[in-house]
Every structure is written in C-alpha cells, then in structure tokens.
C-alpha cells in the first residue's frame, strides 16, 4: 500500500482546509451541544431513563457525525474528484485503487474521531458528561458504522453524475434521517408512529448501537444493530464496487 500514509495525511489536511466540510463534521455537533444544552440543560430525566439530555446527545451526535461524513462528505468529495479529474490523475500512477479507498476510509475515521473528541470535550467541560462503556467496543461500532455509512456514500457517488447531484441525493437521504433516526434529536421525543419509521432508516441502527455501547450495555444486546449495519455494508459496498467509476 505505497502512498497510503502520505495520501491519508494529505486528505486530512484538505478536509480541515475545506471550511464547509469541517464545519458540518467538527463544529456543527458541538454547536448543537451549546444550543440544546442552553435550552434543556443536563438534569437527569425519566424520559431518558435517568440520564440527562446532554448525556444521551453524546452518542447521538456521534451518529450524526458518522451520517454527515458517510452520506454527505463521501459522495460529494468522491463525485467531485471524479468530475474534476482528480481520480483520473490518481489512476495515472502506480497507486492501487484499493489504496485510494483505504486512505479515504482512514481519513474519514480520523475526522470522525476528531469530531467525537471535540464533542466529548465540550460536553465534559460544560455538563460533565460521562462515557460508561468499553472504548474498544465503541471504536469497533464507530468503524463498522463508518464503513456502512460510507458504502452508501460511495454508491451515491457512483450513480450521481456529478458533485452537485451527489450532494442533493446525499441531503435528501440524510436530512430526514437526521431527525427520525435519533441522531439529531432523541428518539424518545418522537410520536410512536414516527418512531416506527425509524426502524427503516440505516442511521437509526448507528444511533442505537452507539448509545447502547456508550452507556455500557452488553454487546450481546446489540447484535441486531451490528447485523443490520454489516448487511448494509455488504449490500451497498457490493453495489458501490460494481458501479464505481473512476471517470
């Protein structure tokens, strides 16, 4: 995998240099903490089983970051690079296509972890939020969720004609999910009919898995979410591999 570390470093730098992407991934979830924290505080509430609103927002907004990166960053960047001819230029080197994909996934994992670290730091400083789970299990969940969301993103990039279309498809898929999956706002606040809709949304399983593992629930209780996300990865990843275009 020659070039992997150099390409990943460069991609991370470029990600941070892109103000809009950096805002939505890094600053937006943290901003939500500031806004909703000011509105609701973090007092223990029976709605959340004795947890505070900010406590449950930590894994929820982590899912939001994963959704933003997988369903917006991945399709926009990939389709944009294809449209501009960046992918063509990479193809005209001995670098393997797999190296490019691996570097993209590593970059997005790094950005996810950076976003979550920022989120947690602000949550801890203002509301003393706690992480009560196993960090390795959480990392596994983040990686699996990232792969599942990114596979959807690559498929969007593959079917979209260009970056604009990819952005529109990504937004149409992502924004309803943001509100209905429990990532953007607690699922407990939705009426039961809408809660049922959430069962059909991929991001819901990211939010449920992260929330469970964040608060230390046994991994065995979340095998269904793991299975759904693995299924998404196989189906969408397979379709993306089939339809991916370098130019």
């Amino acid at each position, binding site marked *: 995998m020659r*070039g992997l570390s*150099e390409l990943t470093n460069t991609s991370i730098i470029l990600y941070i240099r892109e103000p809009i992407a950096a805002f939505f991934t890094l600053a937006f979830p943290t901003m939500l903490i500031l806004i909703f924290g000011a509105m609701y505080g973090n007092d223990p509430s029976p709605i959340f089983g004795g947890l505070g609103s900010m406590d449950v927002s930590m894994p929820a907004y982590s899912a939001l970051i994963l959704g933003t990166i997988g369903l917006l960053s991945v399709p926009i960047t990939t389709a944009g690079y294809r449209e*501009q*001819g960046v992918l063509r*230029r990479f193809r*005209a080197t001995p670098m393997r296509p797999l190296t490019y994909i691996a570097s993209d996934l590593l970059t997005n994992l790094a950005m996810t972890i950076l976003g979550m670290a920022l989120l947690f730091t602000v949550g801890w400083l203002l509301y003393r939020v706690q992480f009560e789970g196993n960090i390795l299990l959480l990392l596994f969940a983040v990686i699996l969720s990232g792969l599942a969301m990114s596979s959807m993103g690559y498929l969007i990039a593959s079917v979209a004609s260009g970056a604009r279309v990819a952005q529109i498809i990504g937004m149409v898929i992502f924004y309803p999910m943001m509100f209905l999956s429990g990532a953007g706002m607690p699922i407990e606040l939705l009426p039961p009919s809408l809660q049922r809709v959430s069962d059909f949304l991929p991001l819901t399983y990211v939010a449920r898995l992260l929330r469970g593992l964040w608060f230390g629930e046994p991994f065995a209780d979340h095998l269904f979410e793991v299975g759904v996300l693995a299924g998404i990865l196989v189906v969408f990843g397979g379709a993306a591999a089939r339809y991916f275009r370098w130019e």
Partner: protein
Amino acid sequence: MAPVLEVTGLVKCYGDLRAVDGVTFAVDEGEIFGMVGPNGAGKTTTIECLEGLRQPDGGRVSVHGKDPYKECRTVMERIGIQLQESDLPSRLRVGEALNLFASFYAGPVDPEMLLERMGLQEKAKSPVAKLSGGQKQRLFIALALINRPEVVFLDELTTGLDPQARRSMWDLVREIRDQGSTVFLTTHYMEEAERLCDRVAIMDHGKIVALDSPRAMIRNLGIEKRLSFQLLNGSKELALDALPGVEHVERRQDRVTVSGSGKRFISRVVNALEDNGIDFDDLRTEQPNLEDVFLSLTGRAVRE
C-alpha cells in the same frame, strides 16, 4: 534496438464509433514523437491506450515490451503521464502535490529539485487553484516527471496556453528529451508538431494518414513555394517565367507573386531580380507547412 512503444492494428470503439481504427506505429528511444490531427481524430484514445488507462478492443499495444493495460502498475512505474482532462484538489498546495505523488513511486526524484527545474519553487505554498494556466501545466509536467520516467506522455500540453507559455513549454519538452526520456505527445496545433517533433503521425477519423518527419512530409508533398514582392519603379517586363523551377507568375498592379518548386527556387528568383536591376520591396515567402500536408491528405483544413 527494440522500439520503446509499439502499436499494431490498435482498435478502440465507443459504441458504433471506431475512435481508433487500426493504427500501427512504433516509437524509438529518445524521440519526440507527435500525433496530430483535429479534435476527435482519435489521438487521446490512442495515447490513453498506451498509458494503460483504456483497454484496446483490438490490436496490440506495448510499452517496453509490456502490455500497459494488463501490467499497468509495472508500466506506470516507468512512464510519466500528463492528462488532457485532469485536476488536483483545489486546496492542495504545489509542494504537497509533488510530495504526495512522489510517495506513489518506488524511486522518485527530489520534489524540491523538480520544483526548481519547473520554475515553481516560489509557488510551493500556493494552492493549485491559484496557479495560472501555464504554471498549472508546469505542475502537471512536474508530476509526470517525478519518477524519472523513461517515456513521457503529453496529451494536448499547450491547449489553452498563450503563445509565450506555449513556446516555453516547447523548450521544456526538448529539455525532457535531452535529459534522456522518450516523448510521445498529441496536439492539434500543426505548428507545434512541426517545430517540436522528430516524427509526426497525422491522424484523421481514427486512422494514421501519414507518418514521417515533418520536413520529409512537407518535401514529399511537392507543394509549390510562393514568393511575392512589391515592384518599386513602375511596370517593367519581368522575365521570370523562363527561370527553372518557376511555374507561375501573377501580377496585380505592382504586387508580383511567383510560384514554383525546387530547392533553389527562392534564391533563383531573387538573383534574377538583382541581375536585371529590378528594385523591389516587401519580399515575402510562403513555405508549405504541416497544415498544407493535412489539407492535401484530407481535403480539409484543421480547425482549432
């Protein structure tokens, strides 16, 4: 010595269109080999088959004896590519781009030295998006040279550049060859091919219609040369028709145009004017060029 590039009966179709229709040629080491022709003639498809970016539908393509599509990673290590339509991330800086591409190869040159050679050292920290057209092309050439390639492919290198930038690109291409690389380029500027290339393949509708050195092509064309001048002191009877090589003399008031052929055509005419004491001014010669070769082969002018 085996040729560096060998193409035999290459065919590439897009749907019903035979974009490249049975092309055969070979390029020797150290040559600047050009492929010219109008847009859509099949030049880019041919170069991309050689670069291993497209799979031929028929025929054989080899680079250093290897199939560039099937052994693309081995071949990519030894060739340098400048693509017609490609770009880099707009916020990527020049220095970063070179370091990044250097990391893709087993034996890259020092990126700093390459920047200096391309006259881009002051732009090392500039984002790609802020470069002028000429600077950007220099950066793309730098990327193509980062692995000390034995063959460099340049696809429409100077399209869209102003004449000054174009000339400096020509110098750069000659320099690349002088440093030991074989150069394969495409262009739709006939003048560029004529001035830059050792040998030229003229392409039209997916076929090679002529392949030779530009000079030989023009010479073999047998097109007449033309010389015109302004007579200064009135209407004297000119005895130019009788000169060897002169085929036609045309006179419009004081402007005389003489057409003919042969190596010494121009000096003969001028000497005859001198010998007869004819005063003239504003002497112009029109040499046939590759443009005329294309016209005579295809019956059409190359449009830009």
